[in-house]
């Protein structure tokens, strides 16, 4: 077979693609010996956001209406823009447009990120795995479990050690996993000695086959604080079972202030402050993120000095999904009874106050390296300009968070980016769009490629562009870049 052709493995057709050519799908091509995705270059169209339908990307060849869009209403994203190599060459597109009387420049490039990763927040109390444990996709290590945060389990996936530091297969699977997560596809992940979870950005997670519906209303102690008043007078004792902090109404400050009578209940685990218990059980995927199915497992007994026959006890999880009601018999043993109608409302109120459980995916990459050389001949000036907020960074037009400190380390919510904004190269690395927008005079001052600046309408006129509507929830990328005083 032809020596310089490469085999595309994006679909079972397995095209051999010559350099500079595309496969039979026209989506993947051979660019200097590398397989790259070549989707139409995406242009955000602000005017279209007001109820007009998107231009379906498939029909892009037929939907051109010949219309030229005036300056500031159109933003050229880096999706499909390609990149330049070597790095010192100017970025593929350096676009000028006028915004409120000021000439602005947007430098548009697709970055190849071989150090990048994603942070995944999974809204569930269920124990997915111990901190530091390896997260796998298709059996390959692609990341690890990190600290759980406020009722969500956090995963850190990707990064240079998985992309390039392991076996070839580990790198390929990591790249595929990141690509799918960033493009909003579902991915199955398994944690060593932990759970299997299906994660999809913006969708509810599926833990060990069970769809997670709600994230907890708060920790067990917080739940006591929130609902103590509604329980007062209707029940003698409430225990909110939570792997992190289990709350006990009669001992909790909230119950004390209301004058709830002592019940003598004894809870296993380590008491923190009154009415707040740590480590009542092992972490798991049952009641409140513990491993217990029978809530009485965390109750070691009742002190007869305070408890009484007929004492009414409600045990409930932090999402309200599990609950059980008991009354003490003459031996002060809890006997399960049906939940009295007067309490059903308070249990469903917990459920109602839980937010829908979602998985969210933040792409994290660094634009502080060689990529800057395509923007300016003096790269550190770009870093400073971003720091000082004169230069706005966007990914496919979506706002990014620039992490303080050195470099340009960005985080972006992938669900705010246009569909299929990410690509990959088999090195392996992710390809992500990145745009730098700044006033033209600032661009000139930081050593920009002024002779490569081209007006917006030239872009729209002469090449294959896909117009999509800007997302209403995103700030318009051209609207709020800060206008600086002329640098001295």
């Amino acid at each position, binding site marked *: *077979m*032809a020596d310089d*052709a490469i085999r595309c*493995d*994006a*679909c*079972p*057709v*397995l*095209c*051999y*693609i*010559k350099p500079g*050519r595309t*496969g*039979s*799908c*026209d989506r993947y091509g051979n660019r200097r010996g590398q397989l790259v995705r070549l989707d139409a270059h995406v242009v955000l169209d602000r005017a279209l956001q007001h109820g007009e*339908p*998107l231009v*379906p990307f*498939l*029909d*892009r*060849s*037929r*939907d*051109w*209406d*010949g*219309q030229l869009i005036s300056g500031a209403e159109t933003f050229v994203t880096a999706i499909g823009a390609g990149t330049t190599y070597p790095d010192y060459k100017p970025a593929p597109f350096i676009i000028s447009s006028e915004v409120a009387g000021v000439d602005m420049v947007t430098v548009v490039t697709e970055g190849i990120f071989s150090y990048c990763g994603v942070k995944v927040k999974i809204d569930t109390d269920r124990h997915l795995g111990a901190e530091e444990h390896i997260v796998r996709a298709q059996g390959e290590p692609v990341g690890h479990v990190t600290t759980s945060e406020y009722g969500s389990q956090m995963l850190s996936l990707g990064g240079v050690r998985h992309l390039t530091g392991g076996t070839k297969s580990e790198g*390929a699977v990591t*790249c*595929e996993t990141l690509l799918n997560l960033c493009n909003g*596809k579902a991915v199955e992940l398994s944690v060593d000695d932990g759970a299997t979870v299906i994660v999809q950005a913006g969708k509810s997670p599926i833990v060990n086959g069970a769809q997670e519906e709600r994230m907890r209303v708060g920790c067990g102690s917080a739940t006591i604080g929130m609902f103590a008043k509604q329980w007062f007078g209707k029940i003698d004792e409430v225990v909110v079972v939570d792997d992190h902090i289990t709350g006990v109404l009669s001992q909790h400050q909230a119950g004390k202030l209301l004058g709830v009578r002592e019940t003598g209940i004894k809870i296993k685990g380590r008491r923190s402050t009154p009415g707040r218990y740590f480590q009542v059980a092992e972490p798991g995927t049952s009641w409140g993120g513990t491993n217990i199915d029978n809530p009485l497992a965390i109750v070691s007994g009742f002190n007869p000095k305070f408890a009484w026959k007929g004492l009414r006890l409600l045990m409930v999880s932090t999402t309200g999904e599990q609950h059980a009601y008991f009354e003490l018999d003459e031996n002060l043993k809890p006997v399960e009874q049906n939940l009295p109608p007067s309490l059903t409302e308070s249990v469903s109120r917990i459920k109602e106050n839980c937010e829908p459980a979602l998985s969210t995916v933040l792409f994290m990459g660094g634009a502080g390296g060689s990529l800057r050389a395509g923007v300016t001949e003096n790269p550190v000036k770009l870093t400073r300009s971003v720091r000082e907020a004169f230069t706005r960074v966007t990914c496919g037009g979506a706002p990014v968070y620039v992490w303080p400190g050195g470099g340009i380390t960005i985080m972006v919510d992938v669900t705010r980016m246009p569909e299929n904004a990410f690509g990959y190269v088999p090195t392996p690395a992710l390809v992500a769009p990145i745009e730098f927008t700044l006033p033209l005079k600032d661009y000139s001052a930081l050593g920009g490629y002024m002779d490569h600046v081209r007006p917006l309408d030239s872009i729209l*006129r002469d*090449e*294959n*562009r896909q117009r999509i509507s800007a997302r209403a929830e995103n700030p318009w990328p051209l609207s709020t870049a800060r206008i600086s005083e002329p640098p001295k």
Partner: protein
Amino acid sequence: MRQPPTIQMLPDGRRVHLHDGPIDLIVEAFGDPAEIREAYRAAANRFGSILDELCVELPLLRSRASRGNSGPDGPVARRMYAAVLPFASRVFITPMAAVAGAVAEEILEAMTHAANLSRAYVNDGGDIAIHLSRSEHFSVGMVNNPEASRRPESPCLFGSANINFEDSTRGIATSGWRGRSFSLGIADAVTVLAPRAAMADAAATVIANAVNLPGHPGIIRIPARDLAPDNDLGQIPVTRVVPPLRPAEIADALARGVQVARGLLGEGLVCAAALHLQGATRVVDRPSRLAIAPRAESPANHRGLAHA
């Protein structure tokens, strides 16, 4: 890495986009909302395995079709094979010449079997299978260049066709050297109406190949293999550049295509055809019926190939 098929509703909330590898379908059904849902579900179910089915038989589908062969096994592959067989003794043709139309037919059939629809179409990159119930019709616009957006300055709508229930047309296809597939000819676009989409696909390929000026020094042709090593056309030269032609040359090239199209019309393999080359259009049609209305000057803002 194998990318899974994607199936999604387009933002207009009416049409469904199905994509897998080189297959891109736009599907729209008309009728009772419950029936439409059922039809879309059936389309999605059928779509999942189509590319894999085809790829299993890819070597056979990329080789020259001939009556002696036993033919392929898969349902889509059989549609392809049946559609190109009438041409197999006359020209070099492989079942791949009908792949788009055959996929469109297969999905349309899955939909019409599952649901009761007044109208429906499956558009596979310009090769379209249509379904019509009594008294329904489709209007179809024809563009000369599937990559029109790369050349927005050139006119694109060169004709329109009205397809009624009574007509035998249920498939539409367009072929030309500017399109995604390679062509041996120089037509900018040949649009064919035929009883089935796979038939239209194969016939459009054959007619577009016939629109030609053999030996013209300005036309640049390159062996298909040099562009795409695994292409089914192998060493056969395919058209890469067509220079501006003189009116007499255009007429000559179109006449060759018209002759082939007339023959196919007589055999009942096509219902009508429109041939377009550098601004000139020839329509081959039954004398009594004007299925295709050519259009002299085309507006630049044409949208969509098939619409209600």
